[in-house]
């Protein structure tokens, strides 16, 4: 019985990933590609992805951009506000490593300097297909 419930819940989690998008210091390039995911060509609602507004409703935190000194605490707080189970996806090269901005005086580096990252999606900027692929691969690992 427990096994069946476990499998049902896993099925539901894989099919209903609600994402929250936070730009922690990016250039907008990845952000508009993430918003693009919602629009007719990519339409991620067909795989159950919804872009949520409140951290409390979200399962996956999609981060773009490097972490700047101003956004660090906010990023942590948003992560803490999300109910478990939750995952973090770093979208874009600068959110993976700091990228081109890594030696800026106000930049701390990639998202993994602040939060545990579950999936890295490189690209500058990431294509929407790459973001979808990253999410799908993340969901395949969901238990």
């Amino acid at each position, binding site marked *: 019985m427990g096994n069946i419930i476990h499998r049902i819940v896993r099925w539901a989690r894989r099919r209903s990933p609600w994402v929250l998008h936070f730009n922690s210091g990016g250039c907008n390039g990845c952000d508009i590609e993430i918003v693009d995911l919602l629009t007719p060509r990519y339409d991620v609602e067909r795989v159950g992805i919804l872009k949520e507004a409140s951290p409390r409703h979200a399962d996956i935190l999609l981060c773009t951009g490097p972490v*700047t*000194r*101003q956004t660090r605490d906010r990023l942590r707080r948003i992560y803490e506000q999300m109910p478990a189970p939750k995952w973090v996806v770093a979208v874009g090269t600068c959110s993976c490593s700091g990228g081109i901005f890594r030696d800026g*005086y*106000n930049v701390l580096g990639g998202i993994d300097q602040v939060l545990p990252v579950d999936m890295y999606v490189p690209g500058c900027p990431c294509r929407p297909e790459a973001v979808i692929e990253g999410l799908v691969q993340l969901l395949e690992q969901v238990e």
Partner: protein
Amino acid sequence: MKLDALLEALQEAFPFKELNPRPVPVGETFITLPPDCLHRAVGLLVERFDLRHLSAITGEDVGDEIVLLYHFWDNQGLTLRTALRRAEARIATVTDLIPGAALYEREVSEMLGVTFEGHPGPQVLLLPDDWDDEPPSYPLRQRQEEDS
């Protein structure tokens, strides 16, 4: 913009200063002024020539001096160049003449440590609130590169 008339008027207002007008690409004219004349000069541009569009204020640390460039524009560019002594980087604000300069001045102020006297709200603009203040460090000042 009537550049010749403008230069003439400026020279008339500051008879003993060397204005050094020189063309700079692309379509810009640079005029040099001492810091204490700048506010009056901007006032003259705004009132006599209706030159109200200040595109930007560039600040640069060139070693012993901090250079400020006030980029104006009215169908062609006019830049007022002034140099402050690094030890005492202060200049009168132009926000009373051009309210739009408020953010430019705040940025120059935090990046280079220039004090704009009379600025209505000289808080930091881009840097974090906890940017290390003791001793003051300014991201675009040159000495920092040598330190790090």
